[in-house]
């Protein structure tokens, strides 16, 4: 009797269950690797500088949508203030880049940590709220940060804590890392940072925090009953999301060289949520899709002379579509639709009979 129990316990240990990846997972991993390698090596050579710059923005905002998707999809916390967090990260990075000569990776790390601390401080009291209240209070906090930024402005090489000199005739650009000064090189640099952030999130999902988040998302009372410290894991999600967004802000600062408070309006947080939902909050690929929607599509339309307003309308329609028919977003819907199409095509030759 005891032998059976011991054997069962052995078979059920997590390390044994997670050992062998299945075939679809291997295929998915290889496709991902191939695509990433292609994007890293080939894309900057194939695309014009206009699109290389755009792809850098895609990389930056994929990190932001990754963070937001983590909060919304994994933990069920809707944040309507992610652009304000991005602004904090960009501000910190810009201040450090102007004030110190620290190497770029260190600045990114510091910007991420500063933003993480800010995120935790804000998240701490806000975590007593749930659902709609939480979403609305993030909107309120984002509105406050936006007003403060409009007065305080982004650092532009001036002195003092704020580092802003309003009377400058020539604003110095924010520096880039020495190994990534050109646009194609900086794209590769931002890709590497993005991959690291995605790996960080993946590591979380596959281990204890990921399971805790899944349990909380499923049912908070049940998770509580299972002994999970809900408050702690929600705070961890906030911290992680803020860290990633802060790092993204640092990469953004180097990408665009000049930061303005009008570039981070409150309504952008709303659009960001729209594209994150459209991309799909339940998979990491959804964050990449969202990044493309948010940055690549506008650049494409801009190039074709189509007004940016059409995109705003498209995002509005997308939100409605996602919420009513496809909660998992494009990242889930497109493969599903393709699979369904594939099944239908495979059925045709047999059942067609003239």
């Amino acid at each position, binding site marked *: 009797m005891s032998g059976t129990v011991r054997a069962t316990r052995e078979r059920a240990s997590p390390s044994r269950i997670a050992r062998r990846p299945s075939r679809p997972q291997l295929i998915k991993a290889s496709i991902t690797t191939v695509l990433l390698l292609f994007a890293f090596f080939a894309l900057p050579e194939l695309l014009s500088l206009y699109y290389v710059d755009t792809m850098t923005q895609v990389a930056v905002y994929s990190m932001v949508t990754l963070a937001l998707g983590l909060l919304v999809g994994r933990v069920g916390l809707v944040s309507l203030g992610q652009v304000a967090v991005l602004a904090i990260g960009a501000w910190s990075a810009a201040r450090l880049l102007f004030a110190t000569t620290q190497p770029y990776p260190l600045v990114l790390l510091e910007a991420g940590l500063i933003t993480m601390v800010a995120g935790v401080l804000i998240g701490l009291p806000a975590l007593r709220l749930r659902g709609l209240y939480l979403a609305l209070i993030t909107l309120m906090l984002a509105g406050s940060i936006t007003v403060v930024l409009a007065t305080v402005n982004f650092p532009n090489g001036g002195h003092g804590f704020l580092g802003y000199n309003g009377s400058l005739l020539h604003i110095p650009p924010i520096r880039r890392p020495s190994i990534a000064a050109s646009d194609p090189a900086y794209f590769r640099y931002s890709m590497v940072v993005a991959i690291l952030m995605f790996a960080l999130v993946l590591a979380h999902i596959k281990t204890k925090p990921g399971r805790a988040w899944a349990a909380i998302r499923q049912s908070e009372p049940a998770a509580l009953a299972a002994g999970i410290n809900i408050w702690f894991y929600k705070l961890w999600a906030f911290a992680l999301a803020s860290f990633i967004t802060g790092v993204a802000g640092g990469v953004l600062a180097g990408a665009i060289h000049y930061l*303005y408070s009008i570039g981070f309006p409150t309504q952008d947080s709303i659009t960001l949520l729209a594209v994150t939902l459209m991309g799909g909050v339940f998979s990491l690929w959804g964050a990449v899709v969202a990044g493309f929607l948010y940055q690549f599509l506008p650049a494409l339309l801009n190039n074709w002379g189509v007004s*940016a307003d059409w995109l705003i309308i498209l995002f509005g329609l997308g939100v409605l579509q996602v919420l009513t028919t496809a909660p998992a977003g494009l990242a889930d819907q497109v493969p599903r639709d393709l699979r369904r199409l594939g099944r239908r095509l495979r059925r045709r030759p047999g059942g067609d009979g003239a």
Partner: protein
Amino acid sequence: MRRHISTRRTILLAAALGLAAAGCSSSSTASGTGSTPASSSSGSASAGTVSTSSCGSKPGVAATGTPIPLGAIATNQPGTSFTDIPNMAKAYFDCVNANGGINGHPIKLYIATEQTNPAQIAADAKQLVQTDKVVGIVGNTSIIECSVDSSYWQKLGFYIIDSGIAPECYSTPNSAAVNMGPRYSSDGAVQYALAQHVSKVVFDQANVPGTGYIAAGPAALAKAANTPIVQLTENVPITDASSVAIKEVNDAGPNGAVILNFTPPQALVILQAAQKLGLENRVKLWGCSTPCNTDFLAQSLGAKWNGKLFVNAELTPPDGTNTTAMNLYKAILKQYGTSVQGGIGSFSQMGFTEAEIAVHALQSITGPYTVQSVNAAFKAVKDFNTGMLCQLWTYGDYPLHIPNNADYTVTANNGKMTTAQGCTPISAADPQIAQYRSAAGTAANAP
């Protein structure tokens, strides 16, 4: 349930298509690359006493040579759109192309729009240079483009002709503007108020990039006149204009002046709030930088503001000016300017002027049209009479450019803007103006 879902999907799709159809047919859609020109009928005098064919060197002969590619970047986002300026420049180029072109070569203007996103602006510049292979930049009008791209243009040797806003449009060697920009236009408005012997100046501006740079101008002028000045900024869009108006009036006092530097809708909101509160008479006068110089604003304000609002005008007022250039401008606008939304006004005037200068420069080029030759020609423009400005316009080889530094003052009168004061140079109390004049001298007034 499945049928329900597909019905909703169909409705969403239909809505999207319907919007697309509506958008395509709506005449008020501002497309980025400009619409196709109206019929380029040669020699037909459609407006004024001037035939549009006088824009080119060979009336009625369409240009068929290899195109000369030029580029422009303009802000186009909800609430702020400057596309009228490059669109009007394009209209002028279309006219020229229909009447001989530049020695038989048509000009092709690539217009890139942006939404105040530095990444996008930098990308637009690279697109114009690398993909569209433009040899010159004419018509840039953007809140931050000069700041973002200035070093890029310097590196490539582009000398751009623009309608400036950001500080770098006026403080770098590679940009010369046809307008005065927010700082010098505000100088003009403040200068007029100081000339009326006000006891205090309140200068209120929108909180967009460059407030410190802009505020330095009026501050210097007020200091030179020994008049106290209060500097204010407001976050835009303004949601509570009443508190703004009360604050301004309180700070100015009964013998003071309130000078505004906002886009037309924001300035209108403040002025209307002041009127509703009954405050328009509580200060000696109200002033405004050039953006207020539109008939839309004058009409919306009405007769209560007669003799109270004095607006700096960077360009010659179109009403009541019967010169060849002004009539040509109106004629081209009517015949070729279908994508210019605002009609007659400072935006389209600026576009006209920039195109005029570019064409004048291009016509002087013998040999191939390359980046070097075109930009050298732009830089060589000297004492050109545009017919739209107080002074003759010069580019020149200077470390900074403020070629338009004399202005009119107009006032709202029964729903229209009428001239209150003729061409007056901006005071050299502004250090930047002094620096420019010491390098370039003072340009002669246009005849």
